[in-house]
């Protein structure tokens, strides 16, 4: 079975592919990693990754422009229960709606809204850019063996919007920048991270390996 990273014209997929390859190799998983814009490929994938860089509406449009892609994602993830990982805007797309520039419908797999990052401190720079830690809100396979909390490992963030889930149970981890926001969301076979695991060195490679081993 193959791990498919969905290519829908969003940003730098090269490093995502390389990070997944490295994590797979280093952890002895030897899973083939492919970049694909072919919805048919999702049917034979063991894991599906949706990256995303840029604006919510642009990414949503990019997905729509591939005939059959949204339907194939629904089928593979919601009906067949394939493990799914959304990264950055790929995670935000899981929400019901995005409010960046205009209101755009998300995939609606995890109820919630993507709104401008609210820090409560006007001295804090936006975007939230750089390395920050995670606070585990509920145990999840994705964080197995990864130190969290103030003295835990750091993840690399760059974003100006945040995912506000309808249910606090959807937040697997939060990160504090002025105020806490959801940095990992998930339910069932679906997870998403606001940070970039493919840019997060130690934490990132461990988290990707956990995802590749995940059998929800």
């Amino acid at each position, binding site marked *: 079975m193959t791990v498919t990273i969905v290519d829908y014209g969003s940003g730098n997929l090269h490093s995502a592919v390389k990070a997944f390859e490295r994590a797979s190799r280093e952890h002895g998983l030897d899973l083939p990693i492919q970049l694909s814009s072919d919805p048919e490929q999702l049917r034979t994938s063991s894991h599906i990754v949706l990256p995303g860089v840029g604006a919510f509406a642009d990414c949503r449009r990019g997905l729509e422009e591939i005939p059959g892609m949204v339907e194939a994602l629904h089928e593979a993830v919601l009906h067949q229960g394939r493990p799914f990982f959304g990264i950055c805007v790929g995670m935000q797309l899981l929400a019901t709606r995005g409010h960046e520039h205009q209101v755009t419908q998300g995939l609606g797999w995890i109820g919630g809204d993507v709104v401008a990052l609210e820090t409560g401190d006007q001295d804090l720079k936006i975007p939230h850019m750089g390395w920050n830690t995670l606070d585990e809100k509920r145990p999840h396979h994705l964080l197995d063996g990864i130190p969290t909390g103030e003295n835990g490992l750091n993840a690399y963030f760059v974003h100006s919007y945040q995912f506000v889930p309808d249910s606090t149970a959807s937040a697997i981890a939060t990160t504090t920048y002025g105020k806490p926001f959801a940095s990992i969301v998930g339910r069932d076979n679906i997870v998403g991270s606001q940070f970039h695991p493919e840019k*997060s060195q130690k934490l990132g490679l461990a988290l990707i390996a956990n995802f590749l081993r995940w059998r929800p």
Partner: protein
Amino acid sequence: MLKSRVIPCLDVKDGRVVKGVNFVDLRDAGDPVESAMVYDKAGADELCFLDITASHENRGTLLDVVQRTAEACFMPLTVGGGVRTLDDIRTLLLAGADKVSINTAAVNDREFVKRAAEKFGSQCIVVAIDAKSVAAERWEIFTHGGRRATGIDAVEFAQEVVSLGAGEILLTSMDRDGTRVGFDLPLTRLVSDSISVPLIASGGVGNLDHLVAGIRDGHASAVLAASIFHFGEFTIGEAKQFMAGHGLNMRLD
């Protein structure tokens, strides 16, 4: 808690590092990818390549360097130098750059910043500003390595490019660059306090106290340095430990 970042910068010409790089355990001091891997292992928070290739024909070697670095280093990579068109940006991003730094093209045509941010997102658009003191409390933008004055006020320019969509500002003091006497702190603080996005301070680092001052007194989110790291004077790890010891929030993973 968000950490302050330490960013080593490598000058790359025709695919090779210029200015000496002198690490222990480096087979080829001229290969930027090898240097990048050393910095990656040492805990650099980001990497920056500045391409100073003179001719456009040799530009392909940079893409090869970016691509090989992105394959080996899982950390953010900023590439600057000679970025003039949306195609230049697209090519660098596809090769594996996470952010692209725009300098002269932003001075010549500010709308270029807007087009770039709209196309690729503010998160990957860094505007590099080279500023020089022209009077008390006044700094202006210079281009062509600090030789050509533009008469543009540095603070106003920074605010304008941020309003057009720049996601980060890389501020270099031309007065301090290469002097090793420390950042121009009044300039750094003035620009950082005038903009809503993160600022990377650059130009003049000669010791580790300078890095602390850049964050603490210059209000920068990140500090960029070249020579103190290249010549093996200090490691990235030493720099970050030192900064943490002075009360700054650093990533010591």
